[in-house]
């Protein structure tokens, strides 16, 4: 993953590298061209000057010889010697040869201009030579300079980038952080930083709008759950009391009694679903009383005592292993709900004569119970999500566990291992 701002940095850096690299030969060619043109011009000027001076006076052959000799000593670049054949016009040449004054450099490049002139009827050849920087030396110099500049450029880019990222993009990253920490079930408003940048302003505005709509939808859903569950309580209470009264009627046949007791099971399920919805609504709405310091093992023991009959009826074997004492800071009702949900799930879903193990180790409580098939993991802690095909449940037990755990920042997990369903909670 690349950070947004590093992307252009890479591209800019790469582009600068290409441009600077291609600039090196171009610079070399241009510098070389300028060098040569200037030297040719300088040579030509020297030639013209020398020619004029030589022709303006009468020099004997011996004079010329002397001049050449003096030149050779004083200014080795210029020479005048007798020539025996005529060359049509001035010519420019280049030569590589060792430089006597520069023993470290193997060979130097010389740029020369050759011309002829007549003195006293004799044809003389005059050459003017100047030392030129070799192009490979120019290349090296240019390359060093260019690469130095490239490094400076990249360092500058990085610094600028960091600066820009810190300043201009700060609101963006702040927005990102606010979004990351936003929790629909806890926060009502999203707080976004102020920004002068048009795009960020637009972004924040749209986000606020979106969040506001979500919060409203969430609130509606919450109040629906709350209202629905409260509205259902009375009819359920009525059904229960009518059924109790009906049982008291004289003259009920065994068939009618059978039917009546058949109503109890679905009615308790309805009642349980509704109670669970009420609990969920309460946790969601933070309508939970003050937390207290509670001993987890005490609560587990009292849940076991509560469900003792069901455990005996299903002939489950129970194994308890508490390695330490654990106190948690939570609302007693919620802790009780959480633990009874774990335990009642284990009791109900374990086949008759199965094993239920409860272990407490450090801050982790593990409920494991024997089972045949792994439960469907996906969405297992969500409301009314099917965890297996053939179980009748309220569909809310695990959702309540998850909701309570979330409220207190506890971690719940499920796995299936060696024929055991393992639910763990880390307080």
């Amino acid at each position, binding site marked *: 993953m690349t950070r947004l701002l590093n992307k252009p940095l890479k591209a800019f850096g790469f582009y600068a590298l290409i441009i600077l690299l291609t600039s090196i030969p171009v610079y070399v060619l241009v510098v070389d061209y300028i060098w040569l043109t200037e030297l040719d011009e300088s040579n030509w000027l020297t030639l013209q000057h020398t020619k004029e001076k030589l022709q303006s006076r009468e020099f004997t052959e011996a004079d010329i010889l002397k001049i050449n000799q003096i030149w050779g000593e004083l200014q080795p670049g210029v020479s005048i010697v007798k020539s025996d054949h005529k060359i049509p016009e001035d010519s420019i040449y280049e030569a590589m040869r060792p430089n006597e004054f520069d023993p470290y450099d193997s060979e130097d490049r010389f740029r020369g201009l050759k011309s002829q002139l007549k003195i006293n009827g004799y044809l003389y050849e005059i050459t003017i030579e100047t030392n030129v920087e070799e192009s490979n030396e120019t290349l090296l110099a240019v390359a060093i300079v260019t690469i130095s500049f490239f490094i400076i450029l990249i360092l500058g880019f990085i610094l600028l980038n960091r600066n820009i990222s810190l300043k201009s993009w700060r609101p963006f990253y702040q927005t990102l952080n606010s979004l990351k920490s936003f929790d629909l079930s806890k926060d009502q408003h999203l707080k976004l930083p102020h920004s002068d940048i048009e795009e960020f302003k637009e972004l924040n505005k749209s986000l606020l709008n979106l969040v506001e709509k979500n919060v409203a939808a969430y609130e509606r859903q919450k109040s629906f759950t709350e209202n629905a569950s409260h509205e259902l309580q009375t009819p359920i209470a009525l059904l229960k009391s009518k059924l*109790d009264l009906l049982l008291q009627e004289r003259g009920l046949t065994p068939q009618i009694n059978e039917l009546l007791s058949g109503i109890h099971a679905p009615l308790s399920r309805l009642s349980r679903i509704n109670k669970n919805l009420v609990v969920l609504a309460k946790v969601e709405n933070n309508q939970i009383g003050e937390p207290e310091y509670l001993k987890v093992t005490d609560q587990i023991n009292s849940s076991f005592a509560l469900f003792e009959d069901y455990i005996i009826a299903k002939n489950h074997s129970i194994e308890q292993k508490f390695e330490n004492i654990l106190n948690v800071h939570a609302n007693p009702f919620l802790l009780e709900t959480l633990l009874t949900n774990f335990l009642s799930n284990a009791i109900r879903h374990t086949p008759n004569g199965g094993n239920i193990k409860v272990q407490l180790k450090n801050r982790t409580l593990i409920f494991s119970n024997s089972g045949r098939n792994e439960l469907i993991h996906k969405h297992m802690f969500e409301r009314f999500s099917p965890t297996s095909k053939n179980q009748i449940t309220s569909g809310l037990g695990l959702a309540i566990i998850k909701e309570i755990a979330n409220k207190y920042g506890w971690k719940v997990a499920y796995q299936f291992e060696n024929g055991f369903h393992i639910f763990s909670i880390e307080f």
Partner: protein
Amino acid sequence: MKILIIEDEASLGRDMVKYLTNEKFRCEWVSNYVAAMEKVGNYNYDCIVLDLMLPGGDGLEILDALKKLQKQDGVIIISAKNSIENKVAGLKLGADDYLSKPFHLAELSARIESIVRRKQFDSQNLIIQNELTIDLRSKTVEVNKNQVILTKKEFDLLLFFVGNKGRVLSKSAMAEHLSGDYSDMFDNHDFIYAHVKNLKKKLKDAGYGDYIKTMYGSGYKWQQ
């Protein structure tokens, strides 16, 4: 004995009156705050069944008024607001018990019995039924002066039967009585059979008449 039922849901109010009324209890029922205040102010009751959500006022205020009037009426709160806060607030204001809706009428009846018993001045903590004597304080049972050793659950069930004499008790109501609010997490309450069977056997062995009748398909009934 007089029982006042304060419940805004007419149908439920009438059901309670119907279920609770017998040779021992006389029930009155009011459905709103004003009527309830009037009754509470003018008469004394052995037990008041109080719904907290009432048209015209908060049920907790009635409790408060009772306290100010220094009345000794027993109060059992029944509320759809299944919340601990309500329960705590109610009990603090002097309520004797709390039952959250939905509940079995048998449970309500047993709880009222228990409150009334506690409120009686001549309370010896003894329930005497023919040859049966139940000592509530020491939680012991005697039949013809012979002690019968019962488990805690059998003892609870016995009290439940005594609080619902002559009425058919469903397995579901008995399971709820024993396991509390969480019994509806389970569909099968067959363990009740075992407890009742043991209770019957122990009482019978000690010489008590066979008063617990099995109502085929529906539950049990204490019949004398």
